[in-house]
């Protein structure tokens, strides 16, 4: 390595690994025990509802990590990540719909909405979706391919900044309109729901739920480590450089298009996986997941947590969605006020999010600690 080689940090320090281990312990031991073993009514019992909620928030956290990769580290604000999330969800939803079998209202081989449309057979794009492996492939391929094609054209013509944001917003808007159509073949505005089983297991039992929860937790940890590996690598340095001064990166002989396209596609695929985990846990997927408002909310999770910090993104998703599930029940009419204020206040006063504020506080304390002995010596 030459003298000018950038310092590339380790994946995590010792303290980071310990914290991660504790989190894993909570996810894989504490939650299953408290949910399945502890009797209902016990102080240590965790209800199915809480498990589902935590699972949902972890799905959002995965999306937040993906968003942080593209926005926090590469400086590209996507307002269309809800689309990739929903596409992954729809791919998984197709498999789950096939698994309903003849238990729908019309006792037909086809899903209820197709019977309703008077369709006689599955359209071509539904073929093989009764195979789990194929659906899983779709979960990765559909968002990935769409992101690759869209990103190729967008980055090649150097669309950036707000233009890119607006175009991605229009993209998800267009897809929402498309999926709202009954004729598109994805259930129109009702989407997919009433799932019965996944891989032969009944979907509504506590055991299946906790299994899905643990898979989601594992995916979150793997995503976090994977993202961490990217941002601490040389590739990650180039991405950060693109964020800070794209022209200079170009003048130094890098082609930013390749880097941007790579991270954009990776980010979309992660979103798709999160969507696929989200659908069986929540039990429904419909086109409103693609609404521009949903996508822009993802951005606020990352902004609240702290752009450019992967842990911050996870924290942000947890904080905002935790607050949402409390506030929409307690004060439904004030939730939008709260969310709106959050958007304004975070951008005005917390440009680096909660993590940034925390770091600042720590730095200030450390400086005071350094200053105190110095004062003591002069006295």
């Amino acid at each position, binding site marked *: 390595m030459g003298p000018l080689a950038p310092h590339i940090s380790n994946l995590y320090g010792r303290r980071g690994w310990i914290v991660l281990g504790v989190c894993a312990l909570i996810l894989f031991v504490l939650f299953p025990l408290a949910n399945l073993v502890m009797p209902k009514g016990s102080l240590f019992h965790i209800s199915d509802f809480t498990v589902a909620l935590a699972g949902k928030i972890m799905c959002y956290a995965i999306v937040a990590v993906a968003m942080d990769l593209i926005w926090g580290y590469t400086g590209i*604000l996507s307002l269309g990540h809800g689309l990739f999330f929903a596409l992954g969800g729809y791919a998984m939803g197709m498999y789950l719909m096939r698994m309903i079998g003849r238990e729908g209202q019309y006792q037909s081989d086809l899903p209820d909405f197709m019977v309703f449309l008077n369709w006689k057979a599955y359209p071509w794009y539904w073929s093989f979706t009764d195979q789990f492996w194929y659906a899983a492939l779709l979960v990765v391929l559909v968002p990935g391919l769409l992101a690759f094609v*869209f990103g190729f*054209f*967008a980055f*090649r*013509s*150097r*669309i950036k*900044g*707000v*233009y890119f*944001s*607006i*175009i991605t*917003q*229009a*993209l998800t*808007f*267009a897809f929402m*309109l*498309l999926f*709202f*159509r009954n004729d598109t073949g994805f259930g129109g505005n009702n989407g997919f729901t009433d799932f019965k089983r996944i891989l032969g297991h009944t979907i509504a039992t506590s055991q299946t739920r906790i299994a899905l929860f643990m898979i989601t937790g594992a995916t979150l940890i793997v995503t976090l480590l994977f993202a961490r590996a990217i941002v601490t690598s040389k590739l990650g340095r180039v991405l950060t450089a693109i964020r800070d*001064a*794209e*022209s200079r990166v170009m003048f130094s002989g890098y082609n930013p298009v390749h880097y941007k396209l790579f991270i954009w596609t990776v980010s979309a695929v992660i979103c798709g996986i999160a969507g696929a985990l989200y659908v069986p846990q929540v039990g429904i997927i419909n086109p409103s997941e693609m609404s*521009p*408002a949903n996508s*822009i909310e993802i*951005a*606020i999770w990352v*902004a609240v947590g702290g752009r450019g910090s992967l842990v911050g993104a996870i924290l942000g998703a947890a904080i905002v969605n935790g607050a949402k599930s409390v506030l929409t029940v307690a004060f439904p*009419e*004030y939730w*939008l*006020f709260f*969310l*709106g*204020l*959050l*958007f*304004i206040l*975070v*951008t*005005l006063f917390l*440009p680096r999010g909660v993590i940034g504020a925390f770091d600042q506080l720590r730095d200030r304390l450390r400086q005071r600690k350094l200053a105190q002995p110095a004062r003591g010596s002069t006295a």
Partner: protein
Amino acid sequence: MLLKKYALALSLASLLACALPAWALPADLVLAVAAGESDERIAAVAKLVASGDSGVEAYFQSLLDGEVQVAGGKRVLIVKDRHAVDAATGEKVEPLPENLDDALVNNRLRGTLEGARSALKLSSPDRAARLTAVKALEDGAREEMLPLIGAALARETDPQIRQSLTLVQAGLQLKSADAAVRLAAVKALAQSDNPNTKMLLLALLEKKGDVYAEPDAAVRAEAQDTLKAVQSQLSSAERFSQIFTGISLGSILLLAALGLAITYGLMGVINMAHGELIMVGAYGTYLVQNLFRAQAPALFDWYLLAAVPVAFFASAIVGMALERSVIRYLYGRPLETLLATWGISLILIQTVRTLFGAQNVQVENPVWMSGGVEIIANVLLPWNRVVIIGFALAVLLLVWVLLARTRLGLFVRAVTQNRGMASCVGVPTARVDTLAFGLGSGIAGLAGCALSQIGNVGPDLGQTYIVDSFMVVVLGGVGQLAGTVYAALGLGMANKFLEGWSGAVLAKIAILAFIIIFIQKRPQGLFALKGRMADA
């Protein structure tokens, strides 16, 4: 003496009461219409009509009303309230004769009589009466009325009535036994823009077994040509109406995007709450409407005149407040501006929901904006859309004058081009920013006022337009009004044409794909600044 005077007065009074003027109709024809075989009676009707007498219409009316009776098979009387009048002469007949038979009117005769009455009305001096008469004739004309229609056509001056009359005449002539007359009629039909013409011609070309409905080959060939001409005329009418709806949508997009062209195009502030400023304008209009309805119902038709400035200032004040309190601190950080203004839009939506409820509110068109104008047959241009096109042009002109001809416009352009230098020469940049943002927001309010006249007014109004208006500005390019105008009209037209061809949703998607491809071809012409400015 006294008795005689009394009788005279009575007869005069009864005459006035029946409103029957004295006349003289050919008695034999009057009788032929009232009694006899159907065919003969119908023939007599035509002859009576051809006589052009002024009393004929009243006589037909009486027949239709069932007031005509025949005395002894000879004399035709109009009997009303036990008072009889001779139908031919208008003389009073007293006492009422004994042997009266009702003059029965069967359905066939009724149709003929009604058609004849319309034909007679063609000579009315009142244009509206003639127009209704022609419209009635389009369905119930008889060959016997041809001379009358020809005469009416000769003295008719109104182009619309003339056109309809020609059509009626040609339709009648097509039934003529003379092939030459039919040929002339087919030729005359080529001028028509009435969709019924097509049916008429198609019926002519119809084939029953081996026999054509029209026996003469020359007439059939001419009918083919005419059919082609008529069809092209009809499809051009359809195209015209499509162009109109395209322009109409374009004018709406233009209104929605013009404000954005200032705040985003000139100032570079990406304002996601722009749609909500449109909504504020629409709700302002709603409030003014309610105020007029409650306080000055007599002036209700003119409430829009008051609503326009109210909508402008309501949105402008909200916009300026936003600029002062939030956006000011985010200049140069477009992505943060985007998020913060999105937050503002959420707050505005929820505020409106809290104040006015989540349901749509009712904004009524004033009377002078309802209805429409029919420029060509079958193409109705609704007044509210026509007015909005005019309004959009007026707002465009206003914005152009403001930017190009006023001191404020000069300052805005100066600050846009070089903020530092403008500040050095004494332009109060901060105030110019606020005013310019207020102007852009006010124009959004005007858009809201216009939109309230054609669409639903609800808390989500802004959300529907925000994506479209950003597309317009992105496509049109930053910093120029002309681009915005072209983009708005282009997108509006493209949307409408594609909609007719592939449905609304696919049209939207196609437009989006088009924009992305277009940007591939001309990124520099659209919005990319060159060189180092690109990073600024």
